[in-house]
């Protein structure tokens, strides 16, 4: 909770089990548990209804950060409507690096700033590893 009493809520959602997978990896790496909503999984209640019900529970002044799997996908399209609420922040193209940074960021910094920085860092983390120059020795590492 921040000094002003507003709470940040994080929601992961996306097609099939992708958000559950990201949540499970965050739990493993960071030990932080994040809410997720699987979309279109057989036998589960419609995800949008569940998200709306979840959001209803939060006080209006709280910040809600929704992270979806893919730009232009139906899940993100559904979530777009929610950005009309001033306290909802929507991010698409979520991967583990992006979600992890956002949920572990401190409470002090402005959420918009956290999101912009995290997107940049996550982008930088997408690499064709075969083309990453192999560099042996201590170059690029530090000393005391």
């Amino acid at each position: 909770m921040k000094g002003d009493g507003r709470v940040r809520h994080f929601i992961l959602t996306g097609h099939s089990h992708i958000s559950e997978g990201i949540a499970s990896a965050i739990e493993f790496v960071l030990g932080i548990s994040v809410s997720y909503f699987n979309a279109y999984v057989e036998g589960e209640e419609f995800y949008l209804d569940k998200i709306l019900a979840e959001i209803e529970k939060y006080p209006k002044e709280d910040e809600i950060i929704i992270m979806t799997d893919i730009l232009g996908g139906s899940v993100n399209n559904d979530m777009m409507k929610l950005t009309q609420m001033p306290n909802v922040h929507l991010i698409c193209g979520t991967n583990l690096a992006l979600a992890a940074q956002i949920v572990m960021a401190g409470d002090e910094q402005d959420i918009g700033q956290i999101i912009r920085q995290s997107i940049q860092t996550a982008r930088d983390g997408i690499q064709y590893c075969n083309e990453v120059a192999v560099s042996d020795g201590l170059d690029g590492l530090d000393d005391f």
Partner: protein
Amino acid sequence: MIKLVRVDYRLLHGQVAFSWTSRLGADCILLVTDTLLDDPIRVTSVKLAKPPGVKVVVKGIEDSIKAIKSGVTDKYHLFVVCETVEGAVRLIKELGLKELNLGGTTPGEDKKELGPVVYVTKEEEAMLKELQDQDVNVYLQLVPDSKELKIKL
């Protein structure tokens, strides 16, 4: 100041680079390894995994002990990650430290499982037992939010 000494054969990876470093408020990570520099691909991976704003120093076991004893590390909030149990035990003993976090070692046929991702040989088990007998708190903990798991040796 040493914030924590951990055994983790993976050296610098997600749990270390993100969870522990931020929780400990570490500004410098010392990777204690005698083998890393022999493998360019592993060295490259370590460089890629470097968290922003944190120094990452790689040294062998002897050099690590020497550096810490010399006082050059005093100004840092230092997080020490040792590749092997043996290296960690030597460091703990030489520096008279009182806490050792076991975060991950490789499995093997002749090894006993102490808990999740931690496997030790008979010799390593004896070394850890000796530490415990000297009142060093030896425990298993993968990430800061999980509980410390005391081990019985």
